[in-house]
């Protein structure tokens, strides 16, 4: 399809979390691997906002880092505008890198405290040789105003700004290479709600103005619903469901999506019925076999403990759950205490 900007197929990333060699020998332990992402596939269309939600450790940031080329996948492919990202080729990666940028959660850690704001924003312009001389300064001023700051702020240092203003600086920097695609990893999680609203509104305005495509990562379902067209739900490194943003919340297909939804406090005081949420995320080093969600799932069946469910098409997108492929699941379903 021509309107797909980014596609990810079978993306997998393992980390070696073994103890040092000597300890392993003494304690007679095997090497240990943590699978941060397993077999993740999705597509992002031009101009849309695709969101990934999941709890801590579900692998959101790992996917983000692989997509922007900060981390090499253990398996799988990433295609940007039809072109496979080749981590081995420095030149090819560099050419691609101008076209996508990343915004991080902590606007303090991501800005070099010893650099002036102007230099921080200009860095990608220099790296990619986009402008020279006085034009750089002019461009920096324009970008600062674009994100709601003033051109004179270029001479200041990051610590002179509040959290929200620092995130504006990070956005100006991300925009300076004129990218088409921006990966935003928890861009507002460190901010207060009133400041979060300012940043989310700004992100929307910039998207409209420049036709940007976003991958938005967040653990906040309300933020994700507000901002995105489609949403992927991650659990222990796997995508359990992908759906149209508005429909995901009306008709969740996967039991984990339902559980997440039920965990969100009801600000509208609508009296929405909720099932109590149970259990916690298991250790990712030894995830449960079969469907990783099975120890917490109220609908668990025998097959769930043995076989990893495959993605199936649903009315609102796709989901990976045996319930969706078993016609007579109602009879085989075991009640869970």
């Amino acid at each position, binding site marked *: 399809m021509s309107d797909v900007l980014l596609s990810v197929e079978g993306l997998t990333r393992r980390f070696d979390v073994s103890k040092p060699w000597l300890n392993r020998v003494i304690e007679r332990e095997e090497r240990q691997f943590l699978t941060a992402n397993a077999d993740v596939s999705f597509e992002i269309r031009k101009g849309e906002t695709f969101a990934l939600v999941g*709890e*801590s450790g579900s692998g959101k940031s790992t996917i983000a880092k692989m997509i922007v080329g900060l981390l090499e996948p253990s398996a799988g492919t990433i295609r940007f505008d039809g072109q496979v990202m080749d981590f081995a080729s420095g030149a090819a990666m560099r050419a691609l890198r101008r076209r996508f940028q990343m915004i991080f959660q902590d606007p303090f850690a991501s800005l070099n405290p010893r650099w002036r704001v102007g230099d921080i924003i200009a860095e990608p312009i220099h790296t990619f040789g986009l402008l020279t001389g006085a034009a750089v300064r002019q461009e920096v001023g324009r970008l600062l105003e674009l994100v709601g700051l003033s051109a004179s702020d270029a001479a200041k240092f990051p610590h002179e700004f*509040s959290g*929200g*203003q620092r995130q504006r600086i990070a956005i100006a920097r991300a925009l300076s290479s004129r990218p088409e695609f921006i990966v935003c990893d928890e861009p507002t999680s460190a901010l*207060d*709600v*009133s*400041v*979060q*609203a*300012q940043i*989310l*509104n700004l992100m*929307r305005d910039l998207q409209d103005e420049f036709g940007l495509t976003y991958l938005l990562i967040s*653990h*906040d*379902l*309300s*933020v994700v*619903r*507000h*901002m995105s067209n489609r949403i992927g739900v991650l659990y222990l490194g796997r995508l359990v469901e992908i759906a149209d943003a508005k429909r995901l*919340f009306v008709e969740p297909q996967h039991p984990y999506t339902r*559980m*997440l*939804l*039920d*965990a*969100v*406090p*009801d*600000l*509208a*005081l*609508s009296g929405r019925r909720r099932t*109590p*949420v*149970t*259990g*916690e*995320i298991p250790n990712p080093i030894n995830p449960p076999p079969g469907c990783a969600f099975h120890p917490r799932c109220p609908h668990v069946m025998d097959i769930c403990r043995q076989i990893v469910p495959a993605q199936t098409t649903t009315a609102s997108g796709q989901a990976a759950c045996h319930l969706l492929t078993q016609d007579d699941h109602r009879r085989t379903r075991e009640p869970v205490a």
Partner: protein
Amino acid sequence: MSTPILSVRDLVVEFPTRRGTLRALDKVSFDIAEGEVLGMVGESGAGKSLTGAAIIGLLEPPGRVAGGEILLRGERIDNLPPEKMRRIRGRRIGMVFQDPLTSLNPLYTVAEQLIETIRTHIDLSEKDARKRAVALLDRVGIPAAARRIDDYPHHFSGGMRQRVVIALALAAEPELVIADEPTTALDVSVQAQIIDVLKEICAERGASVMLITHDMGVIAETADRVAVLYAGRLAEIGPVRDVIQRAEHPYTVGLMGSIPTLTQTADRLTQIPGSMPRLNAIPQGCAFNPRCTRVFDRCKVDRPELIARAGGRQMACWLYDAAVQGEAENV
């Protein structure tokens, strides 16, 4: 009306610094009734944690209570000697903090810590205290409590640790529990469980709760009344349903509009311009005036006091002061 469990009257907390004194809480007043859950919301730096710390007498020096009084069942506790205050903490006021590890000692088993707390405050034998401790752990939802009680805190997951802290906070049957962001460090699916446990167990034991959080959703589901703090002052206080669904104070209105919800349809969120002032730059008059869409002359000169409104609400805003209604153009 019966005496409130807690009464905070014109509380002022200050930090003397080399460049002058910073006033972090400025005449904060509220009550918590018997069995009531009072939510305390505000953006970071509004003074929520300081309010909690001042009540339990754990302000970090040089921070100090510089004015007002704090009464527990009608008796002042803000001027007690440290030794007496220590006995009130744990016995009459239980505490739950954001990071469970600040309340738990990593070197002792959960059993040792629970039994010690119980026996410090209640006259029970070691055996009975242990029985009580196991029952408590079981009540807060620790599976196989009788066995797990002899584990160390680091053997528990984040959510389980916070359950242990709740058990510890309630071990001596306190009248009041102060919970400061008890779920902020936890995963979404665990937060709801912890809030439910906290709420249920306090209700069961008749403990009042002061729930400090920046999360309006948590307040909406948990609290009876809510106090909105802004720049060290109370902007509004009232029944949760009223404040959330019919916010009146301009700051609360802006705050509620800025929160995305699962049901809203608007494309843009309401935006409050700017951010909360630092302590050394709190504007004259109403602290919110530079960001307020309805500001008028009086707001920049005089500070609005809390005014009682219908339905048990109180509001600090000149718009709602009958005496100055004529001055505001856009009321």
